[in-house]
């Protein structure tokens, strides 16, 4: 029997960091939002539907979702060299895949919906914060959507499953080490749109990971919902 796992910031195992969400942070965009997990802060701006160039990328049957994720150079301790990297391109692509199942792209043929996600402060869980912000920004842009997307990282510290890891926890090295398992879920259904594993995990635990993730997504959904309604009811 493993002894009770203690988290460095004193949180419970399935407790999320304090979340902040705000919609309409970029007046120039068609839709925008900010989402923060503790010290991780992401902003997202949506432009479009608008004309897609180059023309050969256009799809006459459906619109195209184009996501660009990046860390700003001051968001991390050692300055991040600006511009696209292998990591940011990968995250842009998985974010696209995580969001597109709920968006009615067929309503806007031959056009593009551009989503820009920038991390202004990073403390692990940036892709999940980015997906949460982007999902709110897309809704704010008036894009027809089936549902919102909620995303959270579930981690394993030695043998304990924890939710929403910080950078310090990601670097945990005792016992079985640290595992980072990012999930994204359709808010009011059991569909997962992103499952990304970094580290090692026993296959039989994966089901437990999705259960804990879904539980945390409910709390995120409430925060997103409140932020969106605030802009109308102000």
């Amino acid at each position: 029997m493993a002894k009770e796992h203690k988290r460095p910031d004193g949180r419970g195992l399935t407790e999320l960091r304090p979340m902040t969400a705000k919609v309409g942070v970029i007046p120039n965009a068609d839709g925008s939002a900010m989402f923060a997990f503790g010290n991780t802060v992401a902003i997202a701006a949506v432009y479009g539907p608008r004309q897609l160039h180059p023309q050969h990328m256009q799809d006459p049957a459906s619109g195209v979702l184009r996501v660009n994720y990046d860390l700003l150079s001051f968001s991390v301790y050692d300055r991040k060299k600006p511009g696209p990297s292998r990591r940011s391109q990968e995250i842009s692509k998985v974010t696209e895949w995580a969001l597109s199942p709920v968006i009615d792209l067929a309503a806007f043929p031959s056009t593009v919906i551009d989503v820009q996600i920038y991390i202004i402060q990073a403390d692990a869980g940036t892709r999940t914060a980015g997906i949460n912000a982007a999902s709110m920004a897309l809704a704010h842009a008036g894009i027809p959507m089936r549902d919102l997307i909620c995303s959270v990282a579930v981690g394993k510290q030695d043998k304990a499953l924890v939710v929403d890891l910080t950078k310090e926890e990601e670097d945990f090295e005792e016992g079985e080490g640290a595992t980072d398992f990012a999930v994204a879920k359709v808010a009011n259904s059991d569909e997962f749109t992103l499952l990304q594993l970094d580290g090692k995990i026993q296959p039989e635990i994966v089901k437990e990971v999705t259960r804990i993730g879904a539980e945390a997504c409910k709390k995120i959904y409430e925060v997103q919902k409140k932020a969106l309604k605030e802009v109308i009811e102000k």
Partner: protein
Amino acid sequence: MRRQTNEEQEFNEESEISAAGVSEDPHAKRKAVIPGEIIVSGEDFLPGEGARREGNDIVSARFGLAEQAGRIVKVLAVTGAFIPRRNNVVIGRVTNITFRGWVVDIDSAADGFLPIEESPRFVNKNAMDQYLAIGDVIAAKIWSVGGKGIDLSLRGKGFGKLEGGFIFRVIPNRVPRIIGREGSMISLIKDKTGCGITVGQNGWIWINGPTIEAQVRARKAIEFVADKVFVEGLTEKVEEWFEKN
């Protein structure tokens, strides 16, 4: 200078009717909804624009204000880009001249195209820029939205080149509020400021008035209206605003 206020009045009423699916029914119940949220349950209701049926529930398909008018439940967008529709009145800027007409930027996903035949008077094909040059701003009507683009027309009252005054932009989905029921809001603003105002469904607004001060006041009044989405009895609030400003 272009045609005067009373004509533009009719013009705006027209555009109000064409405000796709947006009504200003005072008896309708409204509430803020997010995508995927259940608006009402029961077999008695029918999903309108921005809503769909899922089993026993009417579910919102977009973020905005849910409005229940009789049995129909629909969701009005309050933010986002302009989605062009037939019969919308738009204000745009000429960006190119081709053999067949003018290409007009109407601030939407596709450019608008104004064919030469759709101009209300004869145009010399060798000197098309004498009628509309690149950079000119026009008010036009969308007469078709197809897969290959948006066709514009200048036929009808109040359309054509806009000269004098200035244009500015608001969130396109706020336009029905700015116009008001049967043009009540916009005519109030016109009366109070003495300016001629043309509102495009794409959120571009043209103001032309006697003095700069009056024009700026009209713009501020419109921005005040555009900012208040969820307020009841907005007309009284605007009248109050005019007393103070």
